[in-house]
């Protein structure tokens, strides 16, 4: 193991962390507004398929990214309708979205299996990319890597430093109070869930256009669920989500890099378990912490709001 190994490991870390980061900042918005959306895995899968198919048929990457976001946002709209307007059980509705997204992408994506499409290429930032070690890790990545970090910063700023963000948080903390102050609880929740959906779609697009530039059924492989865990791990804060996403990206990258240099090839299943076991460990650690000092869980998370009932 030498410098080259670590450079490739860290570069892979950033790539593996990017879809997680995109998905997590989106889910943070949905949950901050009080709506738990367990449909991330399904929305990601739909985003991945839509992006790949669009790129396959049109060769237009920009359009592929846009349609991936729209497709996933449409799925999240179903969840928003059921959980906000119909006040349905959010856990079951979210699960249904995941099953639907995974199923639908498999159903519609059958002709895409084994095809190749135009994919996202990397974009080196001049001068910075030439810095040894740091250059290849941070500044020779693709546009979505930079976008995801930028999005996390902007969404953090909006959530904590603007009136708009305050509105989102108050709707998630105390919807009745927010309502009495004249905020449109339903509208804010709808918008936040849609933002979450669009971001999950972008995360999916990253998977099929760059990370594994192919369409494979079930290619999300639990990443949508890791996103939901990361949302808790980041204590609903987009800045901490950057740290969390790269931490998990690192675990995923490590698993691949170790395999690439021939470690654990006789029983790769144990390496493949790593991200899932890490998720459990991370959740346990954060719960230990939570016992000591209650952290930022939105008070009305998962509870439907009905005017005049609370």
């Amino acid at each position, binding site marked *: 193991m030498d410098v080259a190994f670590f450079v490739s490991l860290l570069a892979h870390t950033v790539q593996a962390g990017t879809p997680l980061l995109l998905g997590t900042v989106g889910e943070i918005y949905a949950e901050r507004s009080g709506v738990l959306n367990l449909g991330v895995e399904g929305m990601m899968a739909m985003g991945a398929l839509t992006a790949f198919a669009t790129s396959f048929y049109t060769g237009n990457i920009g359009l592929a990214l846009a349609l991936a976001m729209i497709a996933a946002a449409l799925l999240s709209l179903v969840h928003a309708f059921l959980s906000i307007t119909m006040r*349905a059980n959010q856990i079951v509705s979210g699960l249904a979205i995941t*099953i639907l997204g995974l199923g639908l992408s498999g159903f519609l994506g059958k002709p895409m299996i084994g095809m190749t499409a135009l994919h996202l290429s990397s974009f080196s930032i001049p001068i910075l990319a030439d810095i040894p070690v740091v250059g290849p890790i941070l500044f020779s990545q693709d546009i979505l890597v930079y976008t995801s970090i930028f999005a996390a910063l902007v969404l953090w700023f909006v959530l904590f430093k603007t009136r708009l963000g305050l509105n989102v948080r108050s709707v998630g903390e105390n919807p009745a109070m927010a309502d009495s102050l004249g905020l449109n609880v339903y509208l804010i929740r709808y918008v936040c869930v849609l933002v979450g959906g669009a971001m999950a779609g972008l995360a999916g697009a990253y998977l099929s256009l760059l990370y594994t530039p192919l369409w494979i059924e079930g290619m999300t492989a639990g990443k949508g669920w890791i996103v939901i865990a990361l949302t808790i791990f980041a204590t609903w804060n987009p800045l901490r989500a950057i740290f969390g996403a790269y931490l998990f990206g690192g675990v995923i990258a490590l698993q691949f890099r170790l395999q690439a240099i021939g470690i654990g090839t006789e*029983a790769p*299943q144990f390496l493949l378990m790593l991200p899932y076991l890490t998720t459990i460990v991370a*959740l346990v650690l954060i719960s230990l912490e939570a016992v000591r000092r209650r952290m930022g869980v939105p008070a009305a998370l998962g509870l439907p709001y009905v005017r005049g009932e609370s």
Partner: protein
Amino acid sequence: MPVVSLVLGFLSAAPLFLAVGVNPILAYRQVLGVFVNVDGLTESFTRAIPLLLASIGLCLPFKMNFWNIGAEGQLFMGAFAATAIVFMLPDSSAFVLLGSMMIAGFIFGGIWGLIPAYLKARLETNEVLTTLMLNFVAILWVDYLVYGPWRDPEGFGFPLTPMFPLNARLPWIPGTRIHAGLIVGLVCAVLVYIFLARTRWGYELKVTGESRLAAKYAGIDYLKLTLLVMFIGGGLAGLAGMGLVSGIVLRLRHGISPGYGFSAIIIAWLARLNPLAAVPVSILFGGLLVAGDALQIGLGLAFATTSVFQALILLFVVGAEVLTRYKVALTWE
């Protein structure tokens, strides 16, 4: 109401069939065809066995708002444990062997359920995520065994164990694949029903499900209740896994379950967490899986077709719940 959801779920898939160039009427005819011929019907019962066991196992934790998404992993651990027993006691009588396989399957499925139960009750660790992550771990663990130490040397490299000896196979109805697991499933459904309706624990579950705080004031031990419920629930999923290896596949192999544990969530919800209602719903969903195969072979549709059906049905069930709630409110006034 569930029937309406079912029909609506089916009908709403029509545009999807059109999107992939398949005549929806042809597709629906394939689905209905399953229920009007003997082979289709018996196969539906076969597929219903793991669905029934796993879904009645889910009725328990769901009743107390413990969201166990891990039936799939609990099922895999049951299948693993049952197979381990076959390797350990290959020469014992069918009675001893099958009995041990059932007990081991139940215990290992149960243990896989205890882990998230303990974490939730002690540390408030989100059980949706821990149960889900444990699914991946259990599936990979079985993969490790069937690709590695347990692989059949005469299996041409396929990821599967050797066939089970005759004494490790559940008896079945001749001419069908319906095995004795069906009786086990029906007995368990009745037992779980009694557990819920007639015992103190069943009552405690209901109180906890309605309000954990109220349950606490009533002196209900949340930790003990969660552990008990998840051991039984996971154990039932483990039994489903035992039935799969011992009654249908007759060996352990890669991908032993096409998602029975996830379908079971939908079934439990559709049955309104009533274990007796889970019986007909499981048979219906068994038929749905058979229909999925027919659509795959007959019309060249993807395996995922059945997932789409199931998700659409679930969405309508979830949406319809509000309407039924509304009806209750109306009769009140």
